[in-house]
Structure formats: structure tokens, C-alpha cells
């Protein structure tokens, strides 16, 4: 026990936790006030929400190797369930978030059934259909008394509880931050434990070789559905927390672009890795700030019409980062670690990259050898 406490890793984690706890109050100190503010706290809250969503997507795509282009559909479902529960059933926020996560997880588990028959590009197409049909389902007249039809659902804006406000001088942005960050920490710990359990190992076996996994006695269909359900649970929790922060959700709040961006982010961050999802969430949170910064600071930008080319600029950044970090940020950090004399560990990334087909088979094989 003492040994565990003395590990350098424990110190790093404790320091990280301290930063996370102090973060929303830091801007009230000199020096930090130049860089931080309630708006940055708001962004950090979004960051926490995206961690949850992307963590779930990584369990599905990174660990169990199933590609979902329609993951945003589950985020939307989670947000809608939470909104209905809070508004119509008057449930407290926590209960609504938990129920939304569990119900979305269940829905994902059931929708995961087609995943039994489909794989690779066919599964991707099926999940793409999800995000395309969802707005139409939400707007369907038979359920629009709950979903609000085309206008969506608005709940009352979140407010910091009076006790927190009086005793800790906490404002609503800070209150939201602590709630979402706590949820993100818990969900991250859960993902960590899952990936290191029997379940996680089964996912990886499934991804690397379905036939091999079957040989080992893994119930392929059950585990595929579980992966779908688990990642939907994460998406649902993220969606519910998003609703709590945003207090509005509409049928087109999460569109197909959002859905595809999630997948791009997870590849950039690093597939099949916990830290990969965190990096992915970080990029997702700052990507607009980053492009805006470049647009504002690029020389002769105005002459080449940079204002109207932000999308192209973002695309360019994507290409550049895929060239320089083909395994995602987390993957490349791990690669550097492996190159050290301590001796390499077996790489799971290469096998996955191979499976997704981002590179030619030869290249992928070479890097996995």
C-alpha cells in the first residue's frame, strides 16, 4: 500500500487532480486572470463532456474495432431522454442523467444487433443511416408531444445551488464544471477498468480476429452488442450533460458533420487508448479557437480570402496531423516510449490501423512486426 502511494505515478495523478479541482477558481488569481475566465471554465466543461462521448466511441472503434459514423445519434438520444425526464417527469438532474445514460445504453445494445451481421464498411453505412434518420424520427408527429417536434426541448437554465454559492462563492459555470468533470473522471475510471478487465480483453480479441476470438470461447454476438451498448451509454451520459449545460436540444443539434468529426477526433487523439480519448476531446474543444487564431494571425490572410476558407484550413490541419502522427497523439507518444531501451511492448495500434485500412497492408505489417 505504502509502495503504491510512493510511486511517481501517484504523485502525477494527485497533482493532476489538484489542478482539475483548482481550475475554475484559478482565474481569480493574478497572472492566471490573463488566460482564464468563466468562459474558459465553460470550455473546460465542454471538454469534460466530449471526454465522456469520445471515451465511449473509443471503446467501440478503438478497442472492439467497429466503426460507427452515427455516434452523434446516441448523444442526441441521451440529451432528449434527459430533457424529457427533467421537463415532463420533473426528475432531478442527476437521476435524469443516469437514466438517460442507462436507457441510451440499452438502446445501443439493441441497435447493436445488426452489428452482428455487418462489419467494416457495411456497419459504417448502417450507423450513418442512424444519424440521418434520427432527426426525422424526433420530428415525427406521433411523438412530438414529448420531443417538441421541430422546435426541440428547452429546460430551465441551470443554477448553482444557494449553499454552494454562499459558502464557496461558486457561480453556475463553476458548478457545471465540477459536475461534468466529476462525471468525466468517473467514466474515465470506468473505461480504464473495462479495458483492463476480461471484457476489454475480449473486445480486443474480437477486433484482432473474430475467428480467433470465437475459438477462445468468446460469444461474438453478445460482446459486439455489449460494445455497442457500452459506447452508447457513454454517448447518452455525454448528451445528457450537454443538455444540462446547454439547456436546449433540437432535432438538428447534432448533425452528420458533428458525428463524422467525432470519429476524426478519435483517430487524431489515438485509437484504443484512454489518453487518446482525452487528447481527442482536447482537440475537439480547441479546434475552433485554433483555426480562428490562425485566421487572425496568418500574414496576408485577407488577400487570400482566409475568412471564408476556415473549413479548408481545418482540413489542411487534419491532413498535416495525420501525416505527422499517423497513430494519433496517444499512439505516437506510446511509440516513442516503446523505442526506448526499456523494450517495446506489443503494439495494438498497428493491427488496428491495418484493419481500418488507413495504410497499405505492407506498411501496416511492417510497423506491427
Amino acid at each position, binding site marked *: 500500500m505504502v509502495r503504491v502511494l510512493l510511486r511517481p505515478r501517484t504523485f502525477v495523478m494527485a497533482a493532476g487532480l489538484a489542478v482539475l479541482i483548482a481550475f475554475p477558481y484559478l482565474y481569480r488569481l493574478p497572472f492566471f486572470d490573463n488566460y482564464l*475566465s*468563466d*468562459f474558459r471554465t*465553460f*470550455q473546460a466543461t465542454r471538454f469534460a463532456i466530449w471526454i465522456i462521448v469520445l471515451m465511449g466511441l473509443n471503446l467501440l472503434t478503438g478497442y472492439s474495432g467497429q466503426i460507427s459514423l452515427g455516434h452523434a445519434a446516441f448523444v442526441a438520444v441521451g440529451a432528449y431522454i434527459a430533457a424529457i425526464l*427533467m421537463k415532463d417527469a420533473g426528475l*432531478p*438532474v*442527476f*437521476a435524469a442523467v443516469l437514466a438517460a445514460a442507462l436507457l441510451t445504453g440499452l438502446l445501443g445494445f439493441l441497435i447493436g444487433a445488426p452489428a452482428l451481421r455487418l462489419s467494416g464498411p457495411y456497419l459504417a453505412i448502417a450507423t450513418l443511416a442512424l444519424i440521418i434518420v434520427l*432527426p*426525422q424520427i424526433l*420530428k415525427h408527429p406521433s411523438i412530438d408531444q414529448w420531443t417538441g*417536434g*421541430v*422546435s426541440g426541448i*428547452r429546460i*430551465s*437554465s441551470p*443554477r448553482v*445551488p*444557494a449553499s*454552494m454559492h454562499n459558502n464557496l462563492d461558486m*457561480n453556475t459555470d463553476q458548478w457545471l464544471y465540477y459536475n461534468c468533470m*466529476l*462525471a468525466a473522471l*468517473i467514466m474515465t*475510471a*470506468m473505461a480504464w*477498468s473495462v479495458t483492463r*478487465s*476480461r*471484457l476489454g480483453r*475480449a473486445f480486443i480479441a474480437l477486433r484482432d480476429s473474430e475467428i480467433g476470438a470465437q475459438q477462445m470461447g468468446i*460469444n461474438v454476438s*453478445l460482446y459486439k452488442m*455489449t460494445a455497442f451498448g457500452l459506447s452508447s451509454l457513454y454517448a447518452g451520459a455525454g448528451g445528457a450533460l*450537454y443538455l*444540462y449545460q*446547454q*439547456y*436546449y*436540444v*433540437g*432535432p*438538428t*443539434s*447534432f*448533425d*452528420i*458533420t*458533428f458525428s463524422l468529426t467525432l470519429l476524426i477526433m478519435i483517430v487524431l487523439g489515438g485509437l484504443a487508448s484512454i489518453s487518446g480519448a482525452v487528447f481527442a476531446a482536447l482537440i475537439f474543444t480547441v479546434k*475552433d479557437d485554433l*483555426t*480562428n487564431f490562425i485566421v487572425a494571425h496568418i500574414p496576408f490572410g485577407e488577400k487570400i480570402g482566409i*475568412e*471564408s476558407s*476556415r*473549413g479548408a484550413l*481545418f482540413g489542411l490541419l487534419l491532413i498535416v496531423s495525420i501525416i505527422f502522427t499517423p497513430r494519433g497523439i496517444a499512439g505516437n507518444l506510446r511509440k516513442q516510449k516503446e523505442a526506448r531501451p526499456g523494450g517495446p511492448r506489443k503494439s495494438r495500434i498497428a493491427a488496428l490501423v491495418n484493419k481500418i485500412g488507413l495504410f497499405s497492408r505492407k506498411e501496416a505489417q511492417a510497423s506491427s512486426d
Partner: protein
Amino acid sequence: MFKPSRLVLLVFAAFMVFGLSFVACGGNDDEGGGGGGGGGKLPVCEGPGCGETVGVTDTSVKIGTLLPMSNTTATAWGVPLSQGMKAYFDYINDNGGIYGRKLELVVGDSQYTGPVASETAKKLTEQDKVFAFMGNLGTEAELAVYTYLEEHGVPDMLILTGDKTWVDPVAFSRSRFLVDYEVEGRILGKAIGEKYDGKKLGILAQNDTFGKDGEAGLKLGIEDAGATMETTTQYYDATQTDVTAQMQRLKADGAEVIGFYGMPAQASGGIAAARTTLSWDVPFYITGVNAAQIVGALAGWENIQGTISVSFGHQSNETEVPGVQAYQDISAKYSPGTQTNSINLTGYSVAAAMVAVLIQTGPDLTRTNFLNAAESICKYEGQGTIAPISMSPTDHAWNEAEVFVEATGTTADTFSWKPFGEVITQYETTKDCKAPTAPADADKQPHAK
């Protein structure tokens, strides 16, 4: 079957504890405040971005706008709108600003979606500390930000969508620039009813508040005309750009005239499909947002001939109107190389209306003074508008008049949406008003004639 590991259970237990803390703290239950915008007072608001004189100095005032600047809608809407706004502000600044204050435009990228718009609105309010917003575009984006802006007491002016949410109920800090979608549909519907009484109307509507309001308006308009017409409706989703299938069904249902409530991509596609694929010369009545050059170009100049639409403003090529001539001159000088079109002119008109309110406010610029001045606007004849605009504490809608336009001209150079008939002003809510006393130096402030 797998067994959940001990850690998973532990984590679930932690989640429950987290939940209990929520319940103990009262969660989200204590409501109150919020939404209390009416009655000439701003809500109580504490924190960054709150206050009467945020974004105002003796020499400058910061104005924000939420426009799509980085996705497919950027080129069609965000860029021309922002260029129009900027051209007018540059012109004002070049002539000394308003009461010595230079106007600083902060363009925020909404990407036309709720999640991005809400983050950008918060950034502009709390980081950039803008005094007010103007010309926020898109219903979906505005839905995600309007309560936030209202609760923070930030003026949310001249909203560029015709949804009724913005003005009904009226909020002190908010006003809408575009004509109500339902009113617009009603005007089109009346014209259809008068001309095609007894025939069958096919409605093609976008499946959102925009399309549904328009559909309701079309039906009301037919009643207004005292006509009896059978209707058949087809919907499409905004993400769907090809509406050939819907056109086919309308034809199969025996529609004899089409009322279209949707965006330019689908309007032009629908018209082209009817004329070429279906060889169907059915008359089209399309919503005002489509009265733009681009729709003619995409549908094909020949195909769109005779299509009727409405417009709340003058066309950008009606240079015989002094306001439009001024727009052409100012654009040429302050925004060289920009193509002048109706979207660009709309951005310019929004900026001009904003300046008119700033002039009426006087040198003592606070949010309350500014919003009171906005409510006192009486018979404003702005750049590009077709009828005088009046506001009141109960009427926060700017444009409420329309004029019919018809697609004419079969080449790119000759094509235009030609206005015809009387300007329809019956839906102006504020019928009579008293011109407010102008501040002392109001007539010395620059503004385009």
C-alpha cells in the same frame, strides 16, 4: 457471460454517491430570475459580460454578430452578410463614428449549429465583451443562444430569422429583422388563392419550424382570399438537397400550383427537377429567402421564369432607389471586389438599422438607453427597406412589409427578381407612432441617405 469486475462496481457506487451529493445540494431545482426581460428593464445579472456599459468606451463600441463563417453556409450567407455589415461600419467610422465612438464589429462563427453558436455567443459576451449582438443568422443557432443573451441582458438585435419565438413573447433586449415566416406564407397564400381558386395546391415544406410556419401561413392566406383549395403537402429535411421525389409525388397527387417553403438549394433543385425531369410547367410560389440571383443560376434561367416570390427589401440592382444607390457607392468604396447582392445588402441594412438606433440613443450609451431608443423607432426608412418601420414596447419586429417579385430575364446579366404590385403593409403591428425627440447632435452623426 462476463462478470463485471470489482472496479466497475466500485465506480458505479461512486456514481451513486455523486448523485446523492446532487440531490443534497438541491440540484437544479431552485429556479427563479431568468426570462424576466419585459417591461423596459434588464434582468439582474452578475458576472462577466453583465452591466450597462459593457463594450463601450468614449471612443469605441463593440458590436458582435453570430454568422456561419466556416461551413457550407459560410459562402452563401455568412461571408456576404459580414461584408455588408463591415462596409457600412467602415463608412461610419471613416466619417468620425457615432458621437465620437468608432464601431467595432466582432464576427463570431456559429457554423450554423447550436453547440458552436452557444459557445461563440458566450465567448463574444464574456471574453470580447461586446455591447450588443446584431443580425444573428439561423433559427437553430439562435435557439441555442437567445435565452443566454436575454438572461445576461445583452441586446440581441435585428435577428436574421423569421421565427416567431424571438418576438412572441416580447423580450426587452431582443428584436427581429426578418418578416415572420407565417405572415410571409400568408401573403403568398393569399396571392395563390386569388389566382388559382378551386385548383389544388401542392406544398413542399422544409421539415422544421421555418417550413411548418410557412405551411400554416399559406393555408391562412388561402382563407384570407376566400378561396377553397385542396392542399397536399410534402416535407423534406434540411440535410436533403434533392427533392425530386417529393416533386414527383406532388405531381402524382395532381397539384396544379406549388407553394414552396424551404432554402435555396432545394428551391432551385425542385424547380429544375419539375421543368426538366418531370417536364411539368406548374407555377411556383417560393418563399422570400429564395429571391436571390443564385437561385436563378442554380435552377436555370429558363426554368425559373415567371416564378413568384416576395421580398422585404429592395433588390440590390434597383439603383433608382436612393438607399440602394448609396449602398452601391459605399460597397464600391469600402468593400471593393465584393459582389453586391441581396444577401450582402441585408447585412448592410442590419448595420444601418443598428446605427440608426445608436444615433437615437444619444451620447449617453447604456444598454437600457439603447433598447429604449430601439423601441421608440418611428417610421424608420432604412437602406434597402421598402416601407417605413415602426417599433414599440410591444412590437419588436422590424420588417413586416413585403413586395411581390417575379423572376424575369433569361441570361445571367438580364436576370432579376422584378418587383410588381403594391407594397403590402397591412401586417405592420405598430400602425401609428410619435417620432421621438432626437438627441441634440443627432443630425450631425454620419449615416447614409
